[in-house]
């Protein structure tokens, strides 16, 4: 149902939301020794999600765990932590913006449908 209504945007919003959590985890763990920064491969995760909606094989734990990749640090630090705050903040901002954009697509779709229902 949501696939027919929102097209790619419903799935994209879910992946964006999940990526936001992963990036926020990185920012939260900026001082944890040995923590490895992770990120979601957005394109692959979205493609998988769409495939799943069309009746493809479901992912083992529901989460996009297969697309959760470790970030390669520009400069490794002594305590084994690979969080680089500037990169994480940039990725977080970019992701938030993309979330906003996707959300406005979804909202536009809902508005169109509401107007059609009301017959204005």
């Amino acid at each position: 149902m949501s696939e027919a209504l929102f097209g790619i945007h419903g799935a994209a919003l879910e992946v964006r939301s999940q990526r936001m959590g992963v990036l926020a985890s990185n920012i939260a763990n900026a001082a944890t020794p040995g923590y490895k920064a992770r990120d979601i491969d957005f394109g692959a995760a979205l493609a998988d999600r769409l495939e799943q909606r069309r009746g493809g094989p479901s992912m083992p734990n529901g989460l996009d765990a297969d697309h959760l990749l470790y970030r390669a640090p520009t400069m490794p630090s002594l305590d084994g932590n690979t969080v680089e705050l500037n990169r994480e903040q940039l990725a977080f901002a970019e992701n938030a913006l993309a979330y906003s954009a996707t959300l406005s697509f979804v909202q536009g779709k809902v508005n169109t449908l509401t107007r059609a229902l009301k017959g204005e």
Partner: protein
Amino acid sequence: MSVSDRPMTLFTMSEQAMSAQLVRMNAATSNLANAGSVSSTEEGAYRPIRAVFTAELDRATGLSSVRSDGLVRSETAPTKRYDPGHPLANGEGYVFETGVDESAEMIEIMESARQYQNVVQALQTAKQLMIETLRSE
């Protein structure tokens, strides 16, 4: 931890990260408060404390928060100083001054405050997006 039985959300994660930074900041402040304190024995001198962080992964959501696993005392040796007039001086006239590095502690506090701000900023952005999603008609 009281929230461990429920699935982790962005809010619980940020809360734990902020608490961890607060523990770290308090440890550094305690060290600063004890800087320059002296003792009559080497064992009795104040040793600086440090917060130890560990990441806590929530498998269901893929979020990982921070847990502060208590405090450790660092093995910074106190400075032995000859000061026979000091009321705490031992039989040979020595006092032991704690090995707190004030500049390092100040930097620790600044870094902690900066990371605390980062978490708050990320949470605010995420919260704003959630509100926008909720308000959409």
